[in-house]
């Protein structure tokens, strides 16, 4: 970082003002602590100094960085050959790197249980389940452009499908898996019908409401779902009736999840590059022009809801098998929000981006444990910062080319 601009007087004044502003802002909450019962006040002045100092420093750094960037762009613009500065793709994301990178990632995932502890494997299984969920929601939000804030409902449908099928009919994982997917799809269509006419944020709030309704019904209709006490002792997936120790079973489940995630990537990728995928994109881009091109809006919307939900349903079955215990508390709005974050952060419509975002968002809190109670604070801040730094997500979807003849 040569040519780092020196802070000017203006920069310093700006930084100082920012510091002062944050000192004012955080004054009541960070400095004063009262105990109403004891009628005592604690003044924590040290916090004020910290806030002022840190925010001023950060403000200065941000300003300098912005100035540095502006200067660099200016310099590049003045280059004699007039070539506009090519927006250079980061090394990792250049198309020609995708294949070796994918192979490397594959090897990493396959070897993971051999290298890491069961606990790490378990965490990775969870992260991979979110990869599946993220890709499923990506169909609805990223491809078809339908903002769904109640995605967790279908996840719940899948989980309870397995839970209840096991409880009442003693059915196993492998039978529950397709049924969970089908029921998820059915519920997706069920939700899809009433919301066909709704757009954008109205759609968002209705899906949110739908998600809540499903959770509340599971919570209150005890006779059906066992209410908040949930369903326990759901068996882990079996393998030809083999008896497995816990460790083996967790590793087996890990590979199962890897396979599911791979299958999801495969299918979603195929869908994306198909007649249906193009219809979804068209729907996302312009609903009216999409109809004028002879696309049945109703059918294509319902397909998106159904397929997205089917994946959530299957992920739900996996989830039930993994935790062996489910109750409605696992299916709150926050869960939907996190899955949505994965999709948007990954870059709407980008499959590789969604996979990466799911891994980051799911593993981040795990490895942020070192920060102890600051974990969620940092998590929230990271979401904001990542959005500001990369508002279009980590990766933008690759431009599809079909040029067999040329």
């Amino acid at each position, binding site marked *: 970082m040569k040519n780092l601009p020196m802070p000017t007087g203006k920069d310093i004044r700006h930084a100082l003002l920012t510091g002062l*502003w*944050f000192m*004012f*802002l*955080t004054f*009541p*909450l*960070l400095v*004063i*602590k*009262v105990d*109403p*019962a004891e*009628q*005592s*006040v604690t003044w924590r002045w040290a*916090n004020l100094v910290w806030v002022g100092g840190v925010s001023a420093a950060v403000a200065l750094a941000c300003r300098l960085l912005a100035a540095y960037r502006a200067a660099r762009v200016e310099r590049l613009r003045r280059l004699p050959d007039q070539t506009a500065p090519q927006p250079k793709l980061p090394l990792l994301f250049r198309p020609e790197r995708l294949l070796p990178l994918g192979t490397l990632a594959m090897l990493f995932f396959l070897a993971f249980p051999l290298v890491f502890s069961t606990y790490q494997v378990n965490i990775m299984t969870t992260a991979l389940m979110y990869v599946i969920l993220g890709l499923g929601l990506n169909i609805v*939000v990223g491809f078809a452009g339908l*903002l769904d804030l109640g995605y967790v409902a279908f996840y719940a449908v899948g989980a309870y499908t397995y839970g209840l099928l096991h409880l009442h009919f003693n059915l196993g994982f492998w039978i529950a898996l397709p049924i969970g997917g089908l029921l998820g799809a059915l519920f997706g269509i069920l939700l899809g019908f*009433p*919301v066909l*006419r*709704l*757009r*954008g*944020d*109205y759609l*968002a*709030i*209705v899906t*949110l*409401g*739908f998600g*809540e*309704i499903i959770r*509340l*019904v599971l919570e*209150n209709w005890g006779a059906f779902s066992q209410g908040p006490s949930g369903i326990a002792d759901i068996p882990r997936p079996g393998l030809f009736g083999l008896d497995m120790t816990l460790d083996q079973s967790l590793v087996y489940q890990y590979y199962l999840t890897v396979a599911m995630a791979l299958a999801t990537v495969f299918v979603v990728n195929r869908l994306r590059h198909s007649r249906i995928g193009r219809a979804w994109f068209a729907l996302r881009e312009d609903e*009216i022009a999409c109809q004028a091109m002879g696309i049945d809006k109703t059918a294509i919307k319902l397909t998106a809801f159904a397929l997205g939900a089917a994946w959530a349903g299957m992920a739900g079955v996996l989830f039930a098998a993994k935790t062996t215990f489910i109750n409605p508390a696992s299916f709150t*709005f926050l869960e939907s*929000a996190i899955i*949505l*974050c994965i999709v*948007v*952060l990954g870059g*709407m419509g980008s499959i590789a981006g969604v996979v990466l975002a799911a891994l980051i968002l799911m593993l981040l809190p795990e490895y942020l444990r070192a920060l102890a*109670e*600051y974990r*969620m*604070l940092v*998590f*929230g*801040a*990271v*979401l*904001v910062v990542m*959005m*500001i730094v990369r*508002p*279009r997500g980590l990766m933008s979807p690759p431009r599809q080319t079909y040029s067999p003849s040329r």
Partner: protein
Amino acid sequence: MEYFLELLFSGLTRGAIYALIALGYTMVYGIIGLINFAHGEMYMIGAFTALIVSSVLSIYGLPLPAILVLAALAAAIWAGAYGFTVERLAYRPLRDAPRLAPLISAIGMSIFLQNYVLLAQTSDFVPFPSLVPEFAFLEPYGAIVDSSGLTILAVSTLVMTALTLLIKFTRTGKAMRATAQDRKMALLVGINVDRIISLTFVTGSALAAVGGLLIASHIGQINFAIGFIAGIKAFTAAVLGGIGSIPGAVLGSFVLGLTEAFATGYVSSDYEDVFAFSLLVLILIFRPAGLLGKAATEKV
């Protein structure tokens, strides 16, 4: 009949509570089309600021009315400041970004602010003093009406009227409407759009904070998570009424509050939220833009 009246008042109280928060949602949505998930946190921060200020003041022995006024003022000022800062940091850089980017930023902000208050103050529930005095004239009707509920009702009606007038008749209000309609055009006719958007956030947050004080004083306790749940309900109410419309937000809030109260009273509180959300779905099916929202027919 008395039972009906009781439920009616209870529903109106709930509705008024939702309305105080929903107004801010609807203002922000109206002007930049963002579901500001962090808005509930403004309500929570307002309540905490009010608690801190009122406790400090009561330790110094100020009389109750003075405490109420000063606490409300402080809550409004600081929540307004938080609203301003949040917009500057988390939304303004994303104004021209894809539509969902600010939404995620808002969710992140909401998580951040909740944990900020958790760390700065406490994770536990803390008692909130009853700042609204008991009105003597309500004594005979005490079983039906309570003074804090009545105050919330009065304040929310007042605020809605004031806001409607402000937006209809003042210069700033006109600038707000112009910005909401077409930001580029507003900029061209010389409106300082940044300032108007900031002002909207400050006003909305300050309103939520006053709501926070009144509501906390009504239920007597707060913690860092109250904003989220109340925020979701208020947002639902705003959409129900037609998001972007100020009378709509209030109407939607009362419809939601009354539905919940009557559902609890005549059916079961087990399913009050199911009723609330089912009503939302039903209304939107028949009126896709909410009760008072203008159906935006897209020009072909």
